[in-house]
């Protein structure tokens, strides 16, 4: 089985390349990137082959590719891979517009290749434990969920410059585009129910720096068909001196009680000799590895992956509704027409 990565624009490519290499029977053939400086940098850093064009990589006929371009550039590469019969794992969010997300789903469907969306939190061990409790019915009717997916300004946790995270066109927005989809996807999965309404308030108080024109703070309210409601704090509200990049938390309240989830809390605090501030060192299981394992297994077994392109599409729909609501200052009904 041969796999490759398309672009190192997204920092997660740096995790996925190691995840691919860790799987027995997988040959990581290299990566394509149309930015020569970035291509040469990461080819040297990871001692791997760099393809200067995506076409050159596709010509190698890998079994599957992981797309890690800027958010707005997933679609053409997914279409290119699908047309060549190559399975696709796309970084989240699947796309920056609903039309692009739909086109990606349709292209892969037409070609009969799997399309998976990179929602690694579904493979987090504490996250899976909560799913089991919910499926057991112990929480009874679910009332609501208070969730956060906060972070620092994304460029603070990448050594290589990746300024596109605050580019409205390339990223699809700011904090809301970056930090809504993980929780939204988990809630759809947990509840087995779709979002029927979105309300959002966004602001730009954190990181008022030159070149940052996108929202950096946001509170989102989702209503689900099962009657539950949930909020997501998607803010880049963690300061540069925070001990880690950010986090994701959920508190689920139902008639049966309360479940709290903080999957990034499997950490120890390190006060390093030369470090200006304490750091949280994560020691929990690696959800990225489990996610890449699933992608490889789905390709090998010629089956649909545990998370589909449709899941990615539904998350993009929620993000689009977030921006529509923030603009209109009204709740927005889903599905979007």
């Amino acid at each position, binding site marked *: 089985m041969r796999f490759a990565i398309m672009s190192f624009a997204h920092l997660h490519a740096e995790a996925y390349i190691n995840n691919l290499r860790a799987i027995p029977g997988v040959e990581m053939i290299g990566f394509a990137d149309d930015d020569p400086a970035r291509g040469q940098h990461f080819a040297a850093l990871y001692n791997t082959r760099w393809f200067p064009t995506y076409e050159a990589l596709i010509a190698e006929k890998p079994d599957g590719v992981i797309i890690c371009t800027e958010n707005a550039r997933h679609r053409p590469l997914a279409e290119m891979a699908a047309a060549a019969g190559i399975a696709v794992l796309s970084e989240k969010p699947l796309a920056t517009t609903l039309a692009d997300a739909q086109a990606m789903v349709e292209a892969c469907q037409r070609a009969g290749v799997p399309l998976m969306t990179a929602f690694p939190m579904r493979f987090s061990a504490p996250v899976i434990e909560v799913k089991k409790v919910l499926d057991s019915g112990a929480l009874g009717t679910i009332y609501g969920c208070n969730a956060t997916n906060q972070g620092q300004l994304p460029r603070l946790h990448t050594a290589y410059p990746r300024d596109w995270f605050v580019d409205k066109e390339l990223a699809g927005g700011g904090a809301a585009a970056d930090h809504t989809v993980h929780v939204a996807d988990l809630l759809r999965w947990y509840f087995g129910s779709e979002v029927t309404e979105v309300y959002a308030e966004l602001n730009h108080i954190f990181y008022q720096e030159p070149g940052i024109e996108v929202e950096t*703070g946001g509170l989102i*309210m989702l209503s689900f068909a099962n009657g539950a409601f949930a909020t997501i704090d998607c803010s880049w509200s963690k300061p540069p001196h925070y001990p880690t990049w950010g986090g994701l938390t959920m508190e689920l309240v139902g008639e049966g009680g309360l479940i709290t989830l903080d999957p990034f809390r499997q950490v120890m605090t390190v006060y390093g000799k030369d470090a200006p501030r304490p750091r949280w060192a994560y020691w929990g299981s690696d959800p990225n590895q489990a996610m890449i394992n699933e992608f490889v297994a789905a390709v090998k077994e010629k089956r649909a992956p545990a998370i589909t392109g449709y899941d990615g599409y539904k998350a993009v729909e929620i993000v689009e509704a977030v921006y529509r609501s923030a603009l209109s200052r009204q709740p927005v009904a889903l599905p979007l027409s």
Partner: protein
Amino acid sequence: MFRVGIVGSGFMGSFHAAGWSQTPAELVGYHSLDQAQVNKLIERYGGRSFPTLDALLDAVDVVDICTPTHLHHPMILQAAAKGKHIVCEKPLTRTVAQAEEALSACRSAGVKLLVAHVVRFFPEYAQAKAIVDRGEIGRVGVVRLKRVSFQPRLAADNWFLDTEKSGGMILDLMIHDFDYARWVAGEVESVFAKSVRSARPDAAGDYALAILRHTNGALSHIEGGWAYPPPMFRTSLEIAGDGGLIEHPAGSSVPLSIHLKESGQGDAEIAVPASPLLEDPYVTEIKHFYDVLAHDAPPRVTAEDGLAVLKIAFAAVESARTGQRVTL
């Protein structure tokens, strides 16, 4: 020195009595329908029992109203008419119109009206506000506040569960954090909220989430509920600014933990935060009110604050009911 009397002898009446007993004020006595509770207060803090509110008012300079919420309005009017200064438990009144009338009556009568939003006196909340005011975290961007307990279960007359009397969980409990959010981040422009009660009127307890936008652009997330298994009660605060962050997660600063095989826990009637402090925040609050009344100190909570937060709480109730954003 002035004379003070307390109306109502439940949890808040007894907390306030404990507070007044630690001030130079003379705690003259109590008016309550529950004579057994009054007898306990007399035994502990002195004073006597008054058969009517009028009789109590005639004997005091200050009345402290600790009755169920729906009784605040008539009692404030009655006290103001007699020219007595007033301390009143939160929420100020059961409706906004009642609060406006109460403010106007107190203004005309020239009496002080102090609203007991005790959260402003809890040391962690007061400290966080001071940190923000000192500019340590820069301009406030997002405030997150949590206050969730089990459903109150008073053995007799559980007025908390009677919406006519208490206004429900949003008015009784979430109002603490609406007030704190407004104190920290300024006036509120709009509210969007969802509650279990508005969607499922038959549900036990309640649970609600609210998103506030402040006029300065800051956002607040308020979580409230009577939804946890007893005796669980959790609060938390987080204030993120453009230069820093204050985090105080639920249960993060528990200085002691006692695990006994025989505990009598699990049967509390209502949830009151356990903060092992040398001075109870309710006592801090009453001592402050004493300073305001005796020495004309500026109040930490004004009657106008009590009215403003009532408007926010009712906007949340309205939003949860209609599904719409409510502007203030």
